[in-house]
């Protein structure tokens, strides 16, 4: 037989056995990634609404640069999934890989930076701050030295604690993208006013918590079908918006906006007044067509991560990975979702400039954010946020059609919000099975409802919703912390991906990703290193540049972050001593049994 004939030999023979399936649809992988880097619920709400704050930056290039950076992360994650399928995500990956010297180095560096920042935020004197920093090195290194510690701290904060802050943010997004626009379209002025208050924000946050908890209680099987429909409906809404923006002139939009502002809010000449207010607040500048590669463009990148950080969000349960084809499918799904979203975001930027006018668009966003975040006391000209879906709908002079468009855009929120607590409950289960959390955290009712895990995420979510609503001046500016904490978790996994071939070669060599090399170097290490550098740079900017409002210029933010990471570290240390007193050795969880 010739070599060519031999190459046709089957790679393996399978017998009929439980669990052997034909894999999953590549479209599913794409759909999850696409809905996770949510152009509307996340992108339009935040990232695409802040260009006025960095007017000299290039909106388009900042999106593309961010997508390039996230490409490395997606490849690194696809590699981790291929190397350790079904492992359950960051918690297990970090726990399995980050130990010994690398774990101690990561933990020590992390502890040093964290406690140095906390010392600075508490305005302690230099000696005490450096003392804290040394304590951070020792505690962090100790946590990182043995398996479990650093993985727990980074994953508990990124997949559990910080999602309690995401609950009111999800609620706020629902409020300003759905509830208030609908109330305005239907002429329900009391509704617009109520949801503009702290009580209104708290109400939608509680609604969000109830909805997301109910979806966890009901299970993902039914919700998965809802998500599919949400994707289709959301894409139709987006297409309608793009078409309206494409075929309309700026003059037509100005007239439509002034008409609806008068009709819905009794405000005259709102378009120009918004520009004037934005100009006065220095948030109306910029050029959507700029392709400047200067520092301002790079300064926009950390803002873009608010929506482009999550192509890997649904990546932990793709199932049994048998080969390189599955690795490519995971990677392509994530990259497809990422780059499709980035492409649509770029299109949106050009269309917003064309249809709304870049000056107006930035002014509308900036004046609302400034007021909502408490940066200024002047209310915006129009009392609700200029949600792009609503603005585009104004081009059709029919409140019914406007309402239909806004409702259809709600699919972007509904199809995405259900995974909020799902991620937390999985993390809580994993920690409970590892005996770090008490048994009741993993209990389920007779109907399969994980009440313990839900309580552990619902209760802090209600508390943070209350703070977000009633201490808005302090907590609204912490919105970007919600992204930072998750980015730190992803940084940990990026480091794990980088060192995997060298630190855990037995896992790497047995995986399908081992075949991918560039210039003799493992692709997973190259992608992991570039992802580490990218995320590390962004985290440095977040923490060091006052532009982002969450770093050294905002002591509340640092204290909040310190409390999160401190609580996770304390929880882990207490759990170790508590379990030891019960005769349970947590080190045994990850101790490898010798085979020979």
């Amino acid at each position, binding site marked *: *037989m010739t070599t060519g*004939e*031999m*190459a046709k*030999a*089957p*790679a*393996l*023979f*399978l*017998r*009929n*056995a*439980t*669990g*052997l*399936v*034909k894999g*999953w*649809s590549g479209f*599913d992988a794409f759909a*999850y990634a696409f809905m996770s880097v949510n152009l509307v619920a996340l992108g339009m709400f935040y990232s695409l609404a802040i260009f006025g704050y960095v007017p000299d930056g290039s909106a388009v290039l900042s999106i593309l640069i961010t997508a390039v950076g996230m490409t490395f992360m997606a490849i690194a994650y696809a590699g981790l999934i291929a190397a350790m399928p079904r*492992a359950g995500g960051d918690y297990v990956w970090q726990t*399995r890989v980050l130990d010994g010297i690398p774990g101690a180095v990561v933990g020590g560096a992390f502890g040093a930076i964290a406690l140095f920042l906390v010392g600075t935020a508490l305005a302690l004197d230099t000696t005490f701050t450096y003392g804290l920093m040394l304590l951070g090195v020792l505690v962090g290194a100790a946590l990182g030295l043995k398996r479990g510690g650093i993985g727990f701290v980074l994953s508990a904060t990124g997949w559990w604690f910080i999602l309690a802050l995401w609950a009111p943010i999800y609620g706020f997004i629902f409020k300003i993208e759905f509830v208030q626009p609908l109330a305005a379209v239907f002429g329900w002025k009391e509704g617009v006013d109520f949801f503009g208050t702290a009580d209104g924000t708290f109400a939608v946050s509680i609604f969000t918590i109830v909805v997301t908890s109910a979806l966890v209680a009901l*299970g*993902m*099987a039914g919700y*998965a079908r809802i*998500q599919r429909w949400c994707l289709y409906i959301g894409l139709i809404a987006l297409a309608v918006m793009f078409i309206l923006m494409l075929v309309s002139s700026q003059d037509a939009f100005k007239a439509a906006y002034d008409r609806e502002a008068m009709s819905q809010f009794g405000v005259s000449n709102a378009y120009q007044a918004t520009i004037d207010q934005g100009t006065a607040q220095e948030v109306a500048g910029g050029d959507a067509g700029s392709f400047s590669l200067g520092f301002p463009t790079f300064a926009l990148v950390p803002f873009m991560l608010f929506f482009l950080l999550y192509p890997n969000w*649904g990546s932990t*349960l*793709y199932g049994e990975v*048998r*080969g390189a*084809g599955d690795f490519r499918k995971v990677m392509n799904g994530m990259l497809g979702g990422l780059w499709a979203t980035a492409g649509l975001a770029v299109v949106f930027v050009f269309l917003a400039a064309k249809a709304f006018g870049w000056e107006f668009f930035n002014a509308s966003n900036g004046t609302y954010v400034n007021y909502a975040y408490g940066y200024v006391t002047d209310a915006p000209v129009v009392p609700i946020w200029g949600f792009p879906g609503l603005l585009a709908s104004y081009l059709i002079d029919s409140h019914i059609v406007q309402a239909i468009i806004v409702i259809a855009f709600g699919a972007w929120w509904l199809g995405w919000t259900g995974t909020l607590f799902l991620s937390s409950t999985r993390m809580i*289960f994993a920690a409970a*099975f*590892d*005996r770090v959390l008490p*048994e009741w955290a*993993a209990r*389920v009712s*007779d*109907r399969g409802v*994980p009440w313990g895990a839900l309580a552990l995420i619902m209760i802090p979510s209600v508390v943070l919703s209350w703070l977000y609503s009633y201490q808005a001046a302090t907590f609204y500016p912490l919105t970007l912390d919600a992204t930072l904490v998750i980015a730190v978790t992803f940084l940990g996994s990026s480091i794990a991906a980088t060192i995997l071939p060298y630190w855990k070669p037995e*896992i790497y*060599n*047995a995986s*399908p990703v*081992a*075949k991918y090399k560039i210039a003799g170097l493992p692709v997973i290490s190259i992608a992991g290193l570039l992802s580490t550098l990218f995320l590390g740079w962004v985290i440095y900017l977040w923490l060091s540049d006052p532009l982002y409002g969450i770093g050294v210029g905002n002591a509340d933010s640092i204290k909040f972050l310190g409390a999160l990471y401190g609580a996770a570290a304390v929880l882990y240390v207490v759990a170790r001593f508590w379990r030891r007193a*019960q*005769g349970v*050795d947590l080190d*045994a*969880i*990850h*101790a490898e*049994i010798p*085979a020979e």
Partner: protein
Amino acid sequence: MRVFFATDIHGSEVCWRKFLNAGAFHKADVLIMGGDMTGKAMVPITGSDGTWRVTLQEQETLLNGEAEVAAMEKRIADRGYYPIRMSPDEVAASQEDPSLVDARFKQEMLSQVERWMALADERLAGKGIRCIVSPANDDIFEIDPIIAAAKEVELGESNLIDLDGISLVSTGWANPTPWNTFRELPEPELRERIDGLLKDVPDRRRAIFNFHAPPFGSNLDNAPKIGADMRYVSGGQALIPVGSHAIRDAILEYGPVLSLHGHIHEGRGAVKLGKTLSVNPGSTYEDGVLQAAIVDLDVKKAEVKRYLLING
């Protein structure tokens, strides 16, 4: 009494070797293998005259010489697949005639179980560690007598085994699956089988149920939903309970001190069902990681003192 329980290693050589060493490593008194110990796939290594070709995980490799072939065979076996050397003619014949593949599978499975039992006899001799192996729904019936014949291993299936006054009752039969495997029963018949196994147990509270299928709706039985085309629905995100109602009802009715399960590799966890601690340690056998449960029992009080799910 310390029980070390692992399951669903599906032919992984390294996982079996770790299992046999786990007693000494974790100071366990009893080792229990919950079944599904045979592999699901054979990987042909084709060629002759010292040059061989193999495709593992969609990566084709040329092997030169016996040392390279042996290293590849170990790698394949550690993942739970059976490496089979075949001539090009044998490959062609197997592709033409599925019965040849079935026969080779059977040969490989029996051969492996024989080797594993011999290894168990060698490693456990004189250690004072009891070892119980109970085949499950993916295992052919022909392995049962091989296990029963081992000196240091006791066959769990349908045998009532006394562990210092605690009764171990085992069955690898499961509720029906989409794959129509060897040991499946409709729920009513499964319940009858369980009741039959329990009729000679003197005190059912002082019992361990080693039932392969997890109890329905316990979170130990959450598996990715699959469609009629046998593909994951929604990228594997849609999890549904697929466990056994009969096993759940039996646990709740009889209240054994401990119930041990496997079957659903993704269903790793521990839950309380009534007074019973129910455990599914999960399985990641392809990674060469032996997931297991270590349970310390107070045999006098028939209580679980502590437990730990490990990744060995």
